[in-house]
């Protein structure tokens, strides 16, 4: 196999790799703030939403709330998913209903286990706070088969950048903290939330891939040069 063919194949392989490698979203931390009371914020809640010692019986209806804050200078979209958990026998009876809503919106309810979306693409502006209500209802007509069963209730929350909203213009050095709602830098990794830039954003391409791209580009240029030299040599040979 000739050197050119080898280089050509490497080039194609590199292009293929670059095209198929998944582009992960920018890593970020601290955009999603949680609070049980709307006052104290953290990335976790201090306690479960419902009392673990409470023994549920048919007819019980309990509502618990927590607060979500977008701590990024850009608008975000909130998603709340009831997680798929291993302990689920009570939910499997079909007599337990889990519902969630944002603010005064309509409850979205589910009566079966498994990962299920309860809040989808709820827009939260920069620094905005949303109250999430969770309601659990035990069917009052549930028979004895639902006695002494359990369901591990957990929610997975995701706050993603709202790409439909243009980011604020960088003031070129200001503190960018004019919304008054974001409690200062939260990621602590130097990316800073106060300068208007996205924390940890940028290309998802690794340094290794970039190096490969540079090598392949150099290889391609070399091929072009070799081809040109070959052609010039042939032309000179013909003229001679």
């Amino acid at each position, binding site marked *: 196999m000739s050197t050119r063919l080898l280089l050509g194949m490497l080039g194609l392989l590199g292009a293929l790799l670059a095209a198929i490698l998944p582009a992960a979203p920018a890593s970020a931390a601290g955009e999603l703030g949680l609070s049980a009371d709307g006052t104290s914020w953290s990335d*976790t809640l201090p306690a479960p939403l419902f009392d673990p010692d409470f023994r*549920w019986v048919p007819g019980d209806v309990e509502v618990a709330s927590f607060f979500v804050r977008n701590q990024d200078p850009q608008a975000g979209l909130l998603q709340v998913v009831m997680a798929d958990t291993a302990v689920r026998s009570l939910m499997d009876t079909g007599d337990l209903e889990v519902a969630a809503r944002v603010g005064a919106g309509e409850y979205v309810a589910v009566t079966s286990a498994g990962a299920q979306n309860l809040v989808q693409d709820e827009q939260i502006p920069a620094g905005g706070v949303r109250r999430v209500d969770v309601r659990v209802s*035990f069917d009052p007509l549930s028979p004895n088969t639902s006695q002494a069963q359990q369901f591990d209730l*957990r929610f997975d*929350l995701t706050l993603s950048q709202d790409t439909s909203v243009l980011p604020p213009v960088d003031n070129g050095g200001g503190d960018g903290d004019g919304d008054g709602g974001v409690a200062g830098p939260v990621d602590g990794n130097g990316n800073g939330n106060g300068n208007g830039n996205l924390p940890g954003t940028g290309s998802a*391409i690794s340094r290794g891939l970039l190096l490969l791209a540079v090598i392949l580009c150099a290889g391609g240029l070399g091929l072009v040069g070799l081809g*040109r030299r070959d052609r010039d040599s042939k032309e000179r040979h013909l003229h001679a």
Partner: protein
Amino acid sequence: MRKQTILARLRDTRVQAAASLGLVLAAAATGTYAYWTDSASVSGTTISSGSIDLFVNGANNDTAFTSLSFTNIVPGQSAAGVITVKNNGLSPLTYYVNGAASNADTKGLGAALVVKVTGDATRTTSGTSFTCAGNALANTGTAFAANLVGSPTVATQRQLIPGASETLCVQASLPTGAASTLQNATTNISFAFTASQIIP
């Protein structure tokens, strides 16, 4: 032949340039995909359903209860027995008791007995009789019939928290004025306990 054609095409500067451009574009297109995302988990808790389980004398069914048995009872005498009721479940419950007296010989001895139900833990021996010394509990009847203790109406029922137990002392007296037709009569007494969860 085919290999030579491929080699010839790869040597073509335009093909090489296009491949290089494609590589750059592919890398650039990958790099433009960027947005932030953050996630967290919220524990709802482990939801545990309760249970109710009524035990009578330490079992779901007591078919060997004999302390009320009385042979050759005569007017003025009484029999008494103590039943222990327990909530063996995880949730509070209420219960009520229906009594029943068989009448196989059609003499009506069961219906003639006067019943008293108290909360005494032991029966009292009084001569040749057995009695329940305390006062009758609220919402208790005086015959072996429906609603002997409480009734289907929740407000009249006895309440037990998880793990709690109480005693019912049942006294059956044959009144001094009982009819002579009740001589050599027999009746079997039974009790049916019904427990329910407390409605939230």
